């Protein structure tokens, strides 16, 4: 079960590059966590392209986008460069899927995460979430509306 609205979002510190960690608590404004199954899969690539293009709409409302998958930081680095992803991709790989588990979106069957979106408010609580079928790219409309509802 994905974490419910109103609960405190679990803190994490994950590598955003091979030598730089990012913690949830570093961000003052709302944060959108984009859990996706894997770098390079066609659906994930499209999803991240759409969020990248939409990032200016989120930034205009003071929100930060963070992608998270179980891939390692080296893999993220190449994927991010090749797909021109405009926000950090965090490596939930050590131990694998720990953060996905904390948010209730780890898939034991194949060792990846659900395709899930969480909007975390300024108080660090889950304000909105959505879990999509793994094969369906959700688009950015729900998360954008949730961020707008916070301001």
């Amino acid at each position, binding site marked *: 079960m994905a974490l419910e609205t109103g609960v405190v979002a679990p803190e994490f510190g994950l590598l955003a590059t091979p030598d730089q960690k990012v913690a949830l608590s570093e961000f003052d404004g709302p944060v959108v966590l984009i859990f996706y199954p894997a770098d390079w899969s066609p659906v994930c690539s*499209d*999803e991240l*392209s*759409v969020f*990248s*293009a*939409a990032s200016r*709409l989120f930034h205009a409302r003071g929100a930060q986008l963070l992608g998270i998958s179980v891939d390692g930081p080296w893999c993220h680095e190449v994927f991010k460069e090749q*797909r*021109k*992803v*405009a926000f950090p991709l965090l490596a939930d790989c050590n131990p694998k899927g720990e953060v996905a588990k904390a948010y209730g979106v780890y898939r034991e069957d194949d060792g990846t995460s659900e395709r899930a979106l969480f909007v975390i408010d300024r108080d660090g609580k889950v304000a909105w979430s*959505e*879990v*999509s*079928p793994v094969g*369906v*790219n*959700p*688009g*950015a*409309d*729900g998360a*954008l*509306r949730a961020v707008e509802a916070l301001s």
Partner: protein
Amino acid sequence: MSERALLSIPVGPEDHSRGPLDAKLTVVEYGDYQCPYCGQAYPIVEKLMTTFADSMRLVFRNLPLADVHPHAEAAAEVAEAVGLQGKFWEIHDTLFENQRDLSAAALLRYVADVGADVKEATKEIADGGPRQRVEADFESAIRSGANGTPTFFVNGVRYDGSWQYEPFAEYLTQVLDGS
């Protein structure tokens, strides 16, 4: 579970539209002139227009993914500028048919090729109107839950199936039969 994504801004008189206004099927495509998948979808959409003829209306809106497609925004602005001269579909078709070269020089050539006034189009672009229109389309795409390029909405609902001819035609037939 995610809800079905719905078109945030209904089709209106401002839209670029082909086919009868009272068609039972209104297909809105959010597309990017540099996106290879949109290029592949272009002849498929043309074929669907032929198949469904009087039953289908096609609307095109811009969703340029500029990070991955560096010429997409300029191409979209050119299309809008030429659209102001009443030749939107001519330039739309030309851009998809010449997707491999969307350089600035090529774009101006296409404007001339479709018989539009290059000077006027250039002035419109410099004045910023086409850019605002493209940005408005982009935002409406994001708010509608467009999830890649191309994204299609059929009668206001995002179509998540394959846009290859057979499955898309089958879906449109179902919608038509149900209407």
